[in-house]
């Protein structure tokens, strides 16, 4: 005999009594059930406390006069519930109230065969743990193969556990499943971004949640979390198997995630190799490479405009590998069905037009890219992206030419220090001159030396930012203060201090130009390769 008896509430949750309705006495659903027996109204006083009495239609219908009698007899005998045929009419209010007062659950079912109910309930009353094992077995069977996607995971787990399920990412965004469960997550104090995530159980009864991390790397942070509403009567012997069942599902889904990652990785590498070939030997492309490029939807003929996207600030919670796919999805959403290819500096893609385009005018492309980058940044707080756009160039060799310009433009964009910065290499642009300058590591190193005393005096970088802003604003302390959100006097004070620290004289036009360039280049992680 087990030590923790099952309750009528738990038995009903098992779904063994289809279409049942709790008509009254719901607070008694927590009473332990010792035995479930078929009964007659006048046998009730002889039943043992903790019994659940089941009546056939001949013995009792829940709207006849005998119900009050049955409820009172059952309350006196310490029964844990009455199950009987559901009335055709509404059950009288006084009966409901009596059942409530005596905390005696009154369960109505449309069609009742007492023997069948007793047989169905009996095993679970004798050994409640088998109810949990049933769930566990069902989940183990369903998740022998990893689910095809998040949706499949959610629907399979929902069916097996019988509770709503949601899949959320490490930043608590709903990926799939029940929005109501996702909403419950708000109140739960669980930190999903933990470096070493552990399964958690929150709240009590129907407001609680069971959470389990999905980890692609067993020692890494959670890729996402499986969130399941806590079964209403899930305590003790019933809850543990459900937790284990969710763990199995999480493991199975982790396999799916890892498999996806490997597949994507392989695909990216193949694209990357192909792109290298195009960039390096555009004139000697083999027929097989041309064929593969065509299969990917890459066009080699026509006029090409290349774009390079780079990451300028990366918060810990964001994985670079996931950003590639997100970029591709977002670009497609914003009307650019392209396949970004991972490069050392970031991602590269290009658009192609039939006619000779104006190399200086990228058209609506800039707007699209800005919107795309802004949308991605909005999803990940702290993330900064920038992009450069090359000029339009014809033929397979034009891809490489435009790509090089895009790379230079991206360097410029990095120096802009603003969200979703996008720069276009314009043939006549002064920025192109700057791109050449920024591209020379030795010159950059020399000018960076100029700012070294400021960094030493103020590691927070406030002095450098103030200086840059002041020079950007044509030496206006007022304008710089407005941009930085500080008072002009503060700007003036900082400028006095900067003038003391700098090994250069801001009154001298040459010095001043060198210092301005240095402030633009500082704080950017230059890729020296």
């Amino acid at each position, binding site marked *: 005999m087990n030590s923790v008896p099952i*309750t009528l509430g738990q038995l009903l949750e098992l779904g063994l009594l289809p279409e049942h309705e709790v008509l009254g006495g719901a*607070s*008694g659903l*927590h*009473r*332990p059930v010792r035995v479930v027996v078929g009964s007659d109204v*006048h046998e009730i*006083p002889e039943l043992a406390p903790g019994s659940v009495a089941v009546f056939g239609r001949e013995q009792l219908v829940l709207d006849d006069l005998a119900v*009050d*009698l049955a409820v*009172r*007899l059952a*309350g*006196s*005998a*310490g029964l844990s519930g009455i199950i009987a045929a559901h009335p055709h009419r509404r059950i009288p209010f*006084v009966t409901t109230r009596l059942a409530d*007062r*005596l*905390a005696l659950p009154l369960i109505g079912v449309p069609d009742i065969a007492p023997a069948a109910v007793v047989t169905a309930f009996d095993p679970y009353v004798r050994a409640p743990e088998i109810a949990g094992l049933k769930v566990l077995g069902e989940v183990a069977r369903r998740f022998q193969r990893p689910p095809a996607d998040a949706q499949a995971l959610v629907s399979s787990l929902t069916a097996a556990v019988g509770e709503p399920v949601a899949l959320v990412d490490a930043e608590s965004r709903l990926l799939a499943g029940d929005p109501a469960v996702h909403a419950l997550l708000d109140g739960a104090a669980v930190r999903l971004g933990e470096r070493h995530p552990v399964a958690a159980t929150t709240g009590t009864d129907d407001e609680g949640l069971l959470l389990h991390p999905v980890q692609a790397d067993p020692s890494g942070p959670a890729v996402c979390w499986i969130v399941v509403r806590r079964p209403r009567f899930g305590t003790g012997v019933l809850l543990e198997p459900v937790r284990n069942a969710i763990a199995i599902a999480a493991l199975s889904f982790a396999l799916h995630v890892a498999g996806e990652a490997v597949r994507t990785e392989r695909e990216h590498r193949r694209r990357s190799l192909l792109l290298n070939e195009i960039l390096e030997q555009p004139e000697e492309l083999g027929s097989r490479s041309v064929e593969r490029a065509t299969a990917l939807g890459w066009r080699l003929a026509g006029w090409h405009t290349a774009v390079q996207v780079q990451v300028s600030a990366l918060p810990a919670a964001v994985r670079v590998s996931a950003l590639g796919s997100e970029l591709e999805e977002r670009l497609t959403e914003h009307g650019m069905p392209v396949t970004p290819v991972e490069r050392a500096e970031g991602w590269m893609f290009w658009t192609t037009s039939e006619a000779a385009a104006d190399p200086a005018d990228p058209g609506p492309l800039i707007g699209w890219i800005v919107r795309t980058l802004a949308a991605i940044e909005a999803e990940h707080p702290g993330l900064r992206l920038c992009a450069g756009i090359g000029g339009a160039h014809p033929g397979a060799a034009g891809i490489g030419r435009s790509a090089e310009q895009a790379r230079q433009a991206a360097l410029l964009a990095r120096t802009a220090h603003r969200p979703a910065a996008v720069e276009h290499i314009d043939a006549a642009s002064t920025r192109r001159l700057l791109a050449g300058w920024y591209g020379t590591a030795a010159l950059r190193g020399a000018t960076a030396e100029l700012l070294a005393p400021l960094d030493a005096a103020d590691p927070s970088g406030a002095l450098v930012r103030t200086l840059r802003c002041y020079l950007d604003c044509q030496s206006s302390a007022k304008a710089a203060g407005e941009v930085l959100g500080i008072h002009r006097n503060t700007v003036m004070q900082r400028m006095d201090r900067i003038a003391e620290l700098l090994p250069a004289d801001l009154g001298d036009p040459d010095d001043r130009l060198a210092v301005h360039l240095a402030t633009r280049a500082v704080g950017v992680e230059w890729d020296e390769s």
Partner: protein
Amino acid sequence: MSGLRVGVDATAAVALDEHDRIRAVRHGDTPARMLEQLLTRDIEAAVIDRVVAILPDPEPAELKAGARVAVLRIGAPATTAIPPLAAWPARELAMLAGPVTVVRGGHEYDGRVSAPLDLAAVTEFAHGCAGIAGAVAVAGVHGLEYPEHERLAAALLAEQLSVPVIRGGETEALGLLERENTAVLDAAMTAAVDARIGELTAVLSARQPNAELFVLRGDGTVLPAHRARRHATALIGAARAAALHGAVRLAGTASAVVVEARSDAAVVGRVRGGLLPGAGRLREIAGIRTGVRTPRPVVVSRRQAGFPDRFGAALARMRAGHDELPVVVLGDLADEIAGVPVIRPPDGELAAVLGAATAEAAGSVDRIFWQGAGDRQESANRARRLARDAAVRAGADPRTLRETPVRAALTTYVPVPAARLQVTAIGALLQPAPVTP
């Protein structure tokens, strides 16, 4: 563990704890307001298990203001000799009578259907009642033992008309006329009782929604409020019965002869094992024969000459054969009881509300059992079970039930084996058990 019990009547409200100790008393307001004050000021934090109310006996004026009652008798062609409401006083008849009809149906003494229930006629009757009748009384021949036709007709009427439908079979009385008359009076007074119960229910649902409301019957036992509203006649005499029960409780005993002395009269009664001895006679209300069998203690008027003699005779009659019972005296009555040892409990003025707060629930059976198929023992068992069921439905805890012996009267004047059996079951009220998971 158990909560407080409250008794309330027109003069006072009292709350008792589980040891019957008085926790709070209120006087001098309407029952609803006294209850409200008791719950909000005196025992605010405590849990109230139940409230037992003593409603005042209905005034003739209330009968006058009562609903017009439609009467459906099921019994043609067997029972048409005396039509419904035939022997009623003209005044009451004029006040209360709505549409009246007799339809085919009913059972024989042995359960055979004497005529199938004429459902079409019942439906037609219902149409005729719409907008006229404020309540309906239904009574069927042999409807006590075989209530199917009454129930069918009542269900049909309740569906068609949204007014109370009272069945004769709800009153444990032998004769069809008595059951029918009781049902008519009950139906007429439903609204008046509803109004009184409603005031108390409103207070309870606001302050103590889990407390159960009971109403005291004329024998000093309780009915759940939702059933009391259908049995106004059964509530008559509750105040006096409560005072007798309360006096016995105050004296700390279960059985006693009680003398309640008032300025105008002395009331002499007896309580034994929680029951008042039956009067053995049916009560007439406003000159109408009913099936109500409430006990009536002897009332000796002080206004007439020779009070001491008449009082002495009444007391001697009440004590005859019960010499062992103590005599409990409420009020000031010294000389006339000289020579008899008496108990004069304190708090005598609260006897009625205390009697209500400590009241029990009972069920009685008094009918003729046809012994065609089974033997006498079987009939007795059935009578006892019916009485026990009635007591439980009135609110008694089945575990505490005790019974009077089954009194049998052979009905030798009928040509079949039959016996009139009388039995009463009574017990303490059922208290909810705590949920311990």
